[in-house]
């Protein structure tokens, strides 16, 4: 907890920065070892597409990556405590949001990881535009839900 107090004094969210760099380390390993972009919606979408079209190509490494994500809290808990998580959205909102995120990331070929991190890191014009777009509608959705509709 002392660490967190120091953080607020210096005004740099060190944990956020360190966590971000850890995400960067993961994308680095995946790119340099496997030659792949760590874009999570693309990896999951590839699994959905593969199962639907009965094509098992590339299914193994996709499942391995997603398995790593899914068990990450289990492994983390062996060493550290998990942060508090608040999910305020109602079940109805979660369903609507989930469908929008699933469909939208596939249509737009990426999410926060593929466009926001990997795409921005290689200065892809497509990813920069995509990131500006999903950030804008993200800001707009929160503004509408919190300050207009309430």
């Amino acid at each position, binding site marked *: 907890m002392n660490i967190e107090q120091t953080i607020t004094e210096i005004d740099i969210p060190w944990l956020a920065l360190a966590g*971000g760099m*850890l995400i960067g380390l993961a994308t680095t390993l995946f790119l340099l070892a496997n030659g792949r972009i760590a874009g999570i919606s693309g990896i999951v979408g590839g699994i959905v597409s593969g199962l639907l079209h009965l094509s098992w190509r590339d299914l193994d490494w996709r499942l391995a990556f997603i398995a790593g994500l899914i068990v990450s*809290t289990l492994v983390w808990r062996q060493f550290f405590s998990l942060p508090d998580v608040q999910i305020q959205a109602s079940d109805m909102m979660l369903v609507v*949001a989930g469908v929008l995120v699933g*469909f939208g990331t596939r249509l*737009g070929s990426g999410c926060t990881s593929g466009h926001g991190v990997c795409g921005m890191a290689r200065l892809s014009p497509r990813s920069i535009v995509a990131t500006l777009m999903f950030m804008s509608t993200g800001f707009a959705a929160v503004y509408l839900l919190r300050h207009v509709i309430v």
Partner: protein
Amino acid sequence: MRKLIVLLTALISGLVFGFGLILSGMVNPAIVLAFLDIAGQWNPSLLWVMGGAVAVSAVAFFIARRRSTSFLGLPVNVPASRVIDKRLLLGSFLFGAGWGTAGFCPGPALVMAGAGSEKAILFVIAMLAGMLLFEIAGHGRKSGVAS
């Protein structure tokens, strides 16, 4: 043997990615929504997370660009398309709307679903349904590059 190492590095990549999301606080939709709420108590953490991730990844892409294959001898698959089309814009528009509604994007939702959160599991099921809808709508074939 190489096949096994490839799967292992994929697993470790996913694991470390998850650790990054946990450590940074991005698994908590409340923190993500606080970033997206410019008219409220704005929390800039997400920018620092993205900044850290982009800075480290940029080095990786710099190295990857100088190589024809990965360290495990696999082809390096970096999307080549530079076309900004309606699909990209509409898709990202819809994604952002969903992201701002729940505070979840795919990575954190999968991590929290793995932690056993019922709400995250519900979101993930809906997300998979959205992806299935995309496949059935006939767009699936055309989407070559993935991220």
